[in-house]
């Protein structure tokens, strides 16, 4: 009887977005680390990871995709706090080009 139940069991089909979710999470972890070491690489990783995590979550929401989304947003937030000194304008360049 028990064996019969096992035979009826259908394994869940592998999710297409699983690979994307894993990639997004790995990129998120790397982005959080790289933001402190090589911030520019960190931003690129976070942007790519963010797009991948959104695509993965749109296809099938999973914990890994959500983790990737959160990690990549955190990496970009750290960038905003630590890296961007100023400013929302062209003017900021003036003190640095030696006028």
């Amino acid at each position, binding site marked *: 009887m028990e064996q019969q139940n096992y035979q009826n069991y259908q394994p869940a089909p592998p999710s297409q977005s699983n690979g994307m979710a894993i990639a997004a999470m790995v990129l998120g972890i790397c982005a959080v680390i790289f933001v402190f070491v090589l911030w520019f690489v960190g931003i690129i990783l976070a942007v790519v990871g963010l797009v991948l995590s959104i695509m993965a979550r749109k296809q099938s929401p999973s914990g890994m995709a959500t983790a990737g989304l959160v990690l990549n947003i955190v990496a970009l937030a750290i960038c*905003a706090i630590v890296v961007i000194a100023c*400013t929302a304008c062209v003017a900021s360049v003036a003190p640095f080009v030696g006028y």
Partner: protein
Amino acid sequence: MLPTISVFGLTIPVYGPLILIGCALGILVAVYLPVRRDIKKQDIFFCALYALIGVIVGAKLLYLAISLPSFIEAHAQTPWTLEDINVLFTHGFVFYGGLIGAVLGIFIYSKQYRLPFWHLTDSLIPSIPLMHAIGRIGCFCAGCCYGRAMNPPWGVYFRADSAAPPDVALFPVQLLESALNFILFIALFAYSRKPRADRQITGLYIACYGVIRFILEFFRGDGDRGILWLFSTSQWISLALVPLGLYWLIKIKSNNKPTL
């Protein structure tokens, strides 16, 4: 005024956290006070993230396009250092570049997931002046984007460690732009409470902001404004955007059925 703050012994530029607060508030407003009820909250959130990526890329690219020649000229005699490259990439973003980038981000998201582009754009537009208003407070703290030299009480003195010249009283145009953006946010938000045709909310925003920016540019006193003939780059963009905004606001109204 207050370029940096010290948190647990770490010196942080005030501008970054303020930009972050502005973005977070803008996204929260777009998601939880939706303009269109036919778009899922999740889609508005994801689309806002795409737009944010567009803002980063667009604002930086336009800044590089405007400033790179003067940067290259300044370094004609001296060799480039890592610090120069760091300054080039971390300092300076152009708002209009960010706005164009944001629209491109929304466009890509709408095409990727087959969602109506104008519904998404109209949903996110009211948040932009809110983000911008908070960002301009950051500019005031950092001392960038400052105004023309004016005697007190119209002019204020910035600290020596800020980006503004410390020994001259300057008109705080950043605070004026911030206040006008807050007013524009409230106006857009009130306007979008009633059913509006596609592009009307966007049209109202770009028409109003174009006028605001065009006038405020005359009060700006900061160095490299990217002047082309009579006006600055931002004024030329404003001149192009205002008629387009008015066209969308007035003409589309008569052609299109309002939706919510």
